[in-house]
């Protein structure tokens, strides 16, 4: 049975959930009651505009693993026994790139090769052939751990987009996902925080009360031991653990140490059946390399963009001429003194492909 707690941070379906709940519990009193029932302090969501309040509340509920409780709470407040089913129906009707259909401007037969993902194929996954094969290896259990490293802004977190796309395309049926991103914290991130959040995402109640004098390192080890001890080992379908953004400066070394321990644990089969993706670990020891496939992704440059555009054109049945390619690459990467961010490059690529290549393919 579907659980709303399976929705992860950044999931495009959260907008639909927010819109639905804001519509359902429009009244401030209803909202506050529902939040209270779900165990979320209503005073944090005292905005006059229901949409704004629900936007914050839904995102927080996802972070805290309380979305299921929140939906149930709204159903309780509204005395609506079919509210949940209605919401599920709305989610099921959401268009996705992988689902295809007439509305899609981009389609790719093999979801593993898809260059554009997300609703309305709105995100570009540029290059990353190594990333794709790494994910494929994980899905087939050729490897259990994938470590992705690269410079800031190189697109390490794009693995999440690709995984979401594969889920939409029913490539990972039955697989569960526990995603912990250091972007969830506005300040510093320690190993203990990361480990406890992971345990929560895995649905494990560890009954730990950190705050004593115990060393962070020892506590992280204890938390991981507890996770290993209580992890359901008999599951038929694998769980994907994704630790994202470990290279951020606000992340303590203890958080990276926690990830290293987890790599070895998963590699040794202590958490079975599990796949682990870690982004932002820039150095691996020899031992970690035994267990992990290590993908070091470069910053998007001229040659990668050429390769990408040529591949996309090929998928769309269009043969790019050299002059065209030069112009497109220069247009996407820009030539100013300020380098474009990956997001800007992505936007430019989508704009280019939608307006030029896809149109050309359609005979426009």
């Amino acid at each position, binding site marked *: 049975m579907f659980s709303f707690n399976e929705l992860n941070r950044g999931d495009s379906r959260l907008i639909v959930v927010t819109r639905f709940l804001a519509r359902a519990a429009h009244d401030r009193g209803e909202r506050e009651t529902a939040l209270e029932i779900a165990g979320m302090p209503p005073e944090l969501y005292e905005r006059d505009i229901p949409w704004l309040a629900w936007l914050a509340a839904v995102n927080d509920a996802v972070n805290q693993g309380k979305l299921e409780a929140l939906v149930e709470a709204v159903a309780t407040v509204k005395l609506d026994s079919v509210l949940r089913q209605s919401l599920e129906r709305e989610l099921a009707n959401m268009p996705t790139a992988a689902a295809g259909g007439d509305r899609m401007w981009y389609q790719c037969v093999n979801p593993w090769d898809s260059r554009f993902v997300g609703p309305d194929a709105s995100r570009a996954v540029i290059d990353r052939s190594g990333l794709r094969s790494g994910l494929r290896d994980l899905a087939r259990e050729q490897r259990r751990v994938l470590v992705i490293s690269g410079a800031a802004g190189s697109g390490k977190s794009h693995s999440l987009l690709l995984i979401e796309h594969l889920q939409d395309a029913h490539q990972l049926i039955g697989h569960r996902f526990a995603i912990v991103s250091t972007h969830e914290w506005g300040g510093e991130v320690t190993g203990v925080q990361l480990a406890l959040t992971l345990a929560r995402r895995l649905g494990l109640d560890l009954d730990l009360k950190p705050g004593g004098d115990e060393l962070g*390192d020892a506590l992280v080890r204890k938390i991981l031991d507890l996770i290993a001890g209580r992890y359901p080992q008999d599951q038929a379908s694998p769980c994907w653990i994704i630790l994202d953004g470990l290279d951020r400066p606000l992340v303590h070394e203890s958080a990276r140490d926690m990830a290293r321990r987890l790599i070895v644990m998963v590699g040794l089969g202590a958490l079975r059946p599990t796949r682990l993706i870690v982004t932002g670990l820039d150095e691996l020891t020899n031992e970690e390399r035994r267990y992990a496939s290590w993908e070091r992704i470069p910053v998007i440059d001229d040659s990668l963009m050429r390769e990408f555009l040529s591949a996309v054109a090929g998928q769309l049945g269009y043969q790019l001429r050299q002059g065209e390619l030069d112009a497109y690459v220069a247009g996407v990467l820009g030539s100013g003194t300020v380098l474009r961010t990956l997001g800007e490059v992505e936007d430019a690529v989508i704009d280019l492909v939608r307006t030029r290549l896809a149109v050309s393919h359609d005979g426009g």
Partner: protein
Amino acid sequence: MAAEAPGTAATLLTRAAVLSVFDVGWLNADDFASSDELIGFLTSACERVIDPEGTPRWRLRDDQRGRVLRSTERPALRSALGQLSHRPDDAVQAALERFVAGTNAPPDQLDASALRGQLQLERWIGGAGVPGELQGRLDWLTVTDPLRRLLTSKLYGRQGTLQNCQEFIDGGVEEEAAAERQRVSSGSFLVLPFLIEGVGGSGKSSVLAQLIIGPRDGADLAAYLSFDRGWLLDGGPVAIFDELLRQLGAQWAGCRAAVTDIRSRLRGTAGVSSPAGDIASRAAQSVQSVDQELLGVLSRALTSRRRVVVLLDSLEELARRDQALADEVHSFLVSLASAIPSVRVIAAGRALPWTSAQAYRLEKLIGLDEEDALALLRSLTTGVRVTEGVLREVITLVKGNPLSLHLAAGVLNRTGDNPSWMIAVTEDNVQGQLYSRLLDHIRDPDVRAVAHPGLVVRRLTPGVIKVVLAEPCGIAPLDDTAAARIFTGLAEEATLCERSPDGDGALMHRLDVRAIMLPAITRDRPGMTRQIHEAAVEYYRWTAGTVPGDESVSRREELYHRLMLGQDREALDRRWDQAAARDLTAVMDEFPASSQLYLHTKFEGLRVAAALRMSATDYEWQQVTRPTVLRYMERGQAGSALALIRERRGPDGGSLLPEEEIEALDRLGRLPEALKLSRGTREQAERQSDVARLRTLIVSEARILERMRRWATAWDLLAGLAELDRARRAKPEPPLDDDLRIQHLIVLTSMLRIARNERRLAERLRNLAVTLLLRFRWYQVPHRPVADLTAETVALAESTPQRVLYAQPSLLRDLGGEIGEKSDAVLRLVKGALEGLVDPGITPAGLVAAAALDATVTTAGLGWAVSLFSVIRRAVGSISSQRRARKLARQASRGWRSASDSSQDYQDYKAPLNPAEKIGVTQPALRLSIGSIALLLPFVLIAGNSILNNVVEPSLGSYYYSPMRNILVCAYSVLGALMLVYPGYDVADRLLTNLAGAGAFAFALFPAAPAHDATPTQTLISYDHWTSWFMMMTALAIMALRFANSGPTPTGLTLWQRQRYALGFPNPGEMDGRVSAFEAMVYRSCGFIILAGLAAVVPLSMLPQAYDPLLELETVAMVAFGTSWFVKGRASLFSPVEDYAQRENA
């Protein structure tokens, strides 16, 4: 660029960009943005985060913020900041505001948190990369901040120890230079660590902290490594070295680049077993340690004259781990300090893993110095009117012991009494007396009743007091209020109790007090102690299942009390929780022996005391010893592993850990012993029909046979297994699991390797035969179905998950070597595994060759000898040619004979100029010299070492590791040289003596393996040692037989007659009478004695270990060799017509 881009979205972006996190209201957006615009902005550009206070807030996404901060001018950002109603108060916000204001704070003025904020800002505005200086400063502050806090909270001198440490660090320049000279000249200079041992609270960490951030701050480069960070110990020397490098790079920008490079190389090549590490079929895979070369690189990078002070804290954690790790860490530290003269290692702990002999100096902190103790007592008795005289008296009586000082201060505070009188009348157990005195003055009788028996439990809560302690302490029944009152009363007894580190408000007895008092109460009141343990088990069993939030702690405490009760294995297993119980290893010493043994079976890697092992049953002994043995072998300490295995034997006198003993013997190069044990154990397993064990033993036996180059037998064993494996793989169910795949692949690759080594040997021997101009083949390559086997291995390897192969680096290497040419998939995996070890641009063929070479090195040894001999032959051949050319020129010049006389030229070639003659040595003298040396050598070695060392070594080669080494090497070198210049009668003589000479040189150059703790390299070299010995002695045996002749082989003999003559059995008609029958008998006897000795070595060496006949056999063979040469030399010296050379001269 615009000062502030117009438009709602841009304004929202700019305002959000100057806030680390925000609430929607802080943006003051109600005036200009509609709710839809706001929602659109939040959903498209922002994300929900938890701020440092734990409150959910919005935050602009990193990519958006970076774009705004890079593209917006400062005045516009300042303006946006000014329009905000509220700003968060955190490090990132501070960094943002500094950026907006255009003020830069120097990194050395920022604390760790501010540095993180600054680094985050740099990431936003700078794009890729992290500024090294900021990161370095942050790394260093992360190390030193806890030490600063320590020094702020308590600083009780230890000035004497500090002074000694400083003297150790400074060390005289002259002294260091002298030491360096000594190191360079003898290679034996070792810099040992300075050790500090002391109880908790005795000031060890304070001393270390002062060395880093005290008055010497910045004077030295320093690294502080505390072993309570478990990963440092888990990673061993590699992790220690890596952390050391990280800290050095953080402190000194001058070495940062070099340090980064070394760390990269270290991580790439060291750690858990590398592809070049071991033989895949061994249970223990060798752990690669820190490469000495990297120490050299670091030494060169440290161009500063500053000392590098390595401070190791919490050494007791290392002392708890197994001895193999402690030895390895010590060895690494000594190597580090010896390779880098400026390094000084100071290590401190409550218990030490090393002895004083392994330390430069061991300083025991038993009591505080008087002044330090006075300062401590004063701080503890603030508010009590007490004279300095009384305090000094107390200090003198308790000898400055920190715990006693704390307890005495408690007595002073509580009673106002001078505790000196009490201490003075107490002969021992000062702390017990002080403790009792403190208990007496607890006002609440219920608290007093609980306080002392309460030591039996580790945690005190109102629940524990009510349910566990009340009845044994005689205060039952208690209601919740009364229990809470007692709990509060105990919480006020700061000298006795403190808050539990579990963070749940529970109390615990001070660890030092409990450590002193628990054994006493257990001994004095066993019934009550047991009652409390039993009640605690029931209490925690109940709370684990019912009280939310307490499960982990409850399970741990329940197990603690079960272990204290010494419950049996079944009872413990039923309630076991690995994660919860891990903490209990820290209090291992509190448990009875049976519980300690149980814990050791659950947690590997802990040191098992010899006394504890002695108390174990055979089963328990096996369980706790096996992991230790394997770790010894992983760390290259096979000798220690063998000693530990042989610590106890089974009821039948056999090994209790036969598989491990076989592997230890194998690693020590004691292959015949290993083979014998393996066969015996295999027979036993066959009788017991223990299939899994049988398989392991067969693989072990095949490995040993392979290493002994008894390839045919090894092949047969493996072929049998392979047949069974094929049958198993043919069954669809159950599917082959990962472990079985590995086992099958090990068998297949071993067979392929055997086939390859057989082909390789045959090829080399063919080359050798050509070199020797001997046109016969004496080694036939057996027929092996290599093509089928290769296809089978490829299929199995390619169907095996990559993760399984990557986890077996040695096997992966073997696969690369054996099937790399046939499988691209395997080759790709090998390349991935060898990353950092091979050139990134290596060709596939090169990769296969690299893997194959590694695989070969583990088994081959004879190849080296053959190669070496080929080289020597070529060199000798070259010298002979030159000599011949020179002689022809000389002969031509004096017209002795025509240089163009081909027949004579041929004769000359067969009898070239004798180099010995050129230096005035005749052939008889050569023989006498060789004979004399060979006769005397064994007795000189044995007698010399017996006098100097009182030890008789097991073989002549073993004297290499004795004070007689130089004599051994010199004697064999001289023998080699003399035999190489020995002209003999004919070319056959010269070939044989050249062979023997080369063998003698090789014998000297390649020493035998030491009797204990041989490294793999030493073991490998020892094969060449024994190969050369066999080669030399075989040649000398034939020479001894040939001494019965008195000249070159006559012409006109039949083939049979020539062969008889060549072996010293000429027909009577072929004798010229210059060799008497007695002499001929002597020579033949010597020849056969040598041959018999050679033939007896292998079978006799397989006798029980109590009798090793190698030395005797070698001695007998050497005496026979010496006798034959001595007699021949003496005889020819007095012969009327001497040798060929003399005839020639005549």
